[in-house]
């Protein structure tokens, strides 16, 4: 089991440094990415640390920390890196892989992705009431955002019935293929 674990980490690392972002080795730890990152104060590893840990072949510790899962893909880091390291793409790639290998650490976010995509698979479009309801149930936080739900209803800014697209089977096929 441990060997197998290690094998998938090696695959990830290899792909990461050869295909996804070979520029990783150009990082000279200036810290600009971290300085601009809106989430740096809640990250367990800062963006520049993530890059350094990859150089040092310590993918497992990154995947065990919250950083890659919380990253909002705002692309501030990548757009400012003087060495053209696409940090956001690295974060994104690690998220995709941990989803794929069922190692996604933050369950609330994993729940959100799972439910959202299932809804799109059924209807072809998103349907917020069902999304929020299922999320609150799964996360056992029943009255989360109840206050704003009331406001949204009052302003008539939500559909109470889902919209089905005609060829939803096409969307279903796409979601199923890649989920």
């Amino acid at each position: 089991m441990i060997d197998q674990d290690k094998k998938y980490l090696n695959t990830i690392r290899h792909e990461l440094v050869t295909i996804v972002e070979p520029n990783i080795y150009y990082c000279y730890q200036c810290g600009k990415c971290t300085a601009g990152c809106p989430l740096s104060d809640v990250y367990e590893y800062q963006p520049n640390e993530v890059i350094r840990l990859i150089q040092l072949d310590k993918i497992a510790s990154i995947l065990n920390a919250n950083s890659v899962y919380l990253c909002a893909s705002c692309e501030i880091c990548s757009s400012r890196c003087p060495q053209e390291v696409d940090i956001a793409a690295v974060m994104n790639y690690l998220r995709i892989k941990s989803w794929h290998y069922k190692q996604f650490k933050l369950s609330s976010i994993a729940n959100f992705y799972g439910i959202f995509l299932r809804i799109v698979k059924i209807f072809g479009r998103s349907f917020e009431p069902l999304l929020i309801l299922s999320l609150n149930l799964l996360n056992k936080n029943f009255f989360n955002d109840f206050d704003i739900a009331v406001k949204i209803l009052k302003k008539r800014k939500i559909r109470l019935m889902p919209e089905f697209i005609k060829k939803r089977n096409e969307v279903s096929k796409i979601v199923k293929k890649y989920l």
Partner: protein
Amino acid sequence: MEKLVNTKQKDDSTIDQDKRKFAYYPGCSLNSTAIDFNISVKNLFKALNIHFEEIRDWNCCGTTPAHNVSKEMPIALSARNLFLAKNMGLEEIICPCVSCYCKLSKASILINNKEIKSESEIKTRKEIFEVFQNMGYKTEEEFNFKVYSLVELLYKNKELIRQKFIENKNKNSINSETSTIESEILKDLKPVCYYGCVLLRTEGVTKFDNMENPTSMEEILDTVGIKSKHFRFKTECCGAILSLTHKNIVLKLSKEILDAALEAGANSIVVCCPLCQQNLDLRQSQINKHFKSKYNIPVYYISQILGLAMGLSYKDVMIDRLFVEPKFIKK
């Protein structure tokens, strides 16, 4: 990747607008919680004589969840919308939602024939085309999609906006003395423009403005006589969809944006992204509760403000659907 270069392009007013038609992709947000954005954009386009047609049977772009679980899924989901537009004979697409815009424009770059592609991109493109061939779509044609965000389109049509604004002003000059809710809102407006984090950073997409200190929204508002305040938080991130799972992070980031707006001397914020708008407007009450603060800052879509300037009523642009309403709207 393109760095800090300012590649502002010429405006599009030279193109014959009467013959030009766009495919319109609203996306799921604009169909529900951002209905005010949707309606105000559509009414603004009508006022500006910009022709558009909604993509028939469009699907969700998959937004954050799709691109975080798969490299191909967001491209394939958006490819369907692009192919549908092509079936309608349209290749110029307007997409007001910034999140959808990122997905659609990234997909368009992969699908277009002329853009240079890496080996792995060619492979992905081929795979995705196969999926669509099996569903009966034509993939052999020449593709030349161009996806516009709302700000880019308006920016390129600045002269048209200016012209229509002056026409409307002359038309109404007879009763310009009477003050209406619309004129009060416009007169009172001292906004900052907030672009959000990703509009100008989307990788691989043509930059129409500087990504660190953009000025296109300010320039657009300037054409209708609105002066914006200098704002140092123009392209900071509001926390986006973390609002669903890690609300406190979003409340903190959004509070900082509201703070910076007040510090700039503004009394309102003009935005162009439904998610930013939601975090700043809908969640302003949660911010107030959480931080025991008393913010009361209306957060308008740029289409709402321009709509008013074109002489539309506040109901035409749905200003009464904002959660933090301007004080001129009587309850």
